[in-house]
């Protein structure tokens, strides 16, 4: 099977700080990967390397067989759904939820063209899947964190992507909303046959469908392998520079600092 995402010796830097150093990895269709690491490890940068929002200093990125360049980035973005960290939205923003979901389609439709019936149908499906129909006429600035995440996910799905990139989708949510969004992400991943990369800050609420773990520290790849193999005390203690305790049971995993 050919990889859908391939990074070859990718280096990205912002100002004098190197955000990603010489990273090489292959992602295969259908994989669900969790990306973790301390603050400033380069997790978000890894996602932006894949959708071309980050500027490559060195190396090569290939998505769906296409090498990332200024010319191909737009194509790659159209097939890549991106859910960024929770946005700050002005409560008076003159855009409602339906419009915010719909704009996920605009790249695919192209400039000077209108939404077709099919486009409307795709958007409707995304709205149903994420269960946000009751919010459609609400101004986008009036949503709670969890509702906003659902809208972001709906927008990404309405792109009909092959790849889904999620940047800390559970941060700043209450525990019930976290669970709700996590289930939604798993359902979307499964029902849409996506390749998913999800940046996570906390390792206590891991998606059941996730099979692979990528750990980043100071822009370096320090672990890339099966999820369960990465959730080990020595690896995570090295990752976070402190003594980490990993408690596993049939309910899941609990990762915390050893006291």
């Amino acid at each position: 099977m050919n990889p859908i995402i391939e990074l070859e010796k990718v280096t990205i830097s912002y100002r004098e700080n190197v955000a990603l150093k010489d990273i090489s990895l292959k992602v295969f269709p259908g994989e669900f990967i969790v990306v973790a690491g301390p603050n400033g490890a380069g997790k978000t940068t890894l996602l932006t390397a894949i959708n071309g929002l980050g500027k490559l200093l060195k190396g090569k990125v290939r998505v769906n067989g296409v090498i990332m360049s200024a010319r191909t980035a737009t194509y790659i973005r159209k097939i890549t759904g991106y859910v960024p960290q929770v946005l700050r939205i002005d409560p008076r923003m003159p855009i409602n939820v339906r419009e915010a979901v719909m704009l996920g389609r605009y790249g695919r439709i192209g400039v000077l063209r209108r939404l077709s019936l099919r486009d409307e149908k795709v958007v409707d499906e995304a709205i149903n899947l994420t269960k946000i129909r009751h919010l459609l006429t609400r101004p986008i600035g009036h949503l709670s964190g969890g509702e906003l995440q659902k809208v972001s996910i709906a927008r990404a799905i309405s792109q009909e992507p092959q790849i889904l990139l999620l940047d800390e989708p559970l941060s700043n949510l209450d525990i019930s909303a976290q669970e709700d969004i996590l289930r939604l992400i798993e359902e979307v991943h499964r029902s849409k046959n996506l390749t998913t990369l999800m940046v996570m800050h906390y390792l206590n609420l891991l998606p059941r469908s996730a099979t692979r773990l990528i750990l980043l520290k100071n822009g370096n790849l320090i672990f890339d392998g099966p999820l369960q193999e990465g959730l080990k005390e020595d690896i995570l203690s090295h990752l976070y520079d402190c003594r980490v305790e990993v408690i596993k049971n049939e309910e899941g995993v609990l990762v915390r600092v050893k006291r």
Partner: protein
Amino acid sequence: MEFLTYKFLQNAILASFLGGISCSLIGVFVITMEMPFLGVAMSHSAFAGAILGLLIGVNPFLMALIFCFFTAILIGPLSDRAEFNPDTAVGIIFSVMIGVAFLLLAMIPGPKTEALSLIWGSILTITRRDVVLMAIISGIVVLLITLFFKELQAIIFNREIARSVGIPERPIYYGILFLSGAVISANLNTIGGLLIFSLIINPAASAYQLTYNLKKMFLLSSCFGVFSCLLGLFFSSLFNMPAGAVIIISSSIIFLICLLFSPKKRVMKGNYE
């Protein structure tokens, strides 16, 4: 109604109408994308450019346009870089431009009536040629907003998201910057370089208080813009007041009224029209 047959008054009414529409439409971008700095920098660059045009005998509109374009090219990348606060960049450009403008103003020999009218604007003395130019620019603004509405809506929502879904965000964003330069240059001798900024900000800021719908915001903003301009024209022709000043005061009063009666102050669930 006999006064309407005066050519200068016809021109002035048309100019109020066109100036009101084009400035207030551009204002919607300035307000929703939170870049008031853009209007300040652009209007002062246009002002400096126009004065340079007068000094060296080149069409002031053309020089204003060129200055605006360079400002847009300068501001665009600066505002894209996270390490540089765009307000700092604009503060520098703004002060340099105002310095250049007054330096050039001092260099113009003899009476400086024409140059000074670029500061305060003179709606009653503009020519049919100015009106045609304003009509072309306003037409382009309306046409582009209609054609690219969905992309503009996405960019107004969030530039990074617009780019991430595959919208050519950069060219459109730069298009907005250039377009505001063109609008400011075309309206310079009607409203004046020092006051045009308010005609860009006030009507759009007023409309922003009233609606959650972007189309309605464009519509309301242009109504407020035209109304302020016509009011300015009315007072200036009747009481010999400077039109620009009246336009600014009336648009500010409209803003205050909208702010006071804004439904956004008392948000009721389920009723967002």
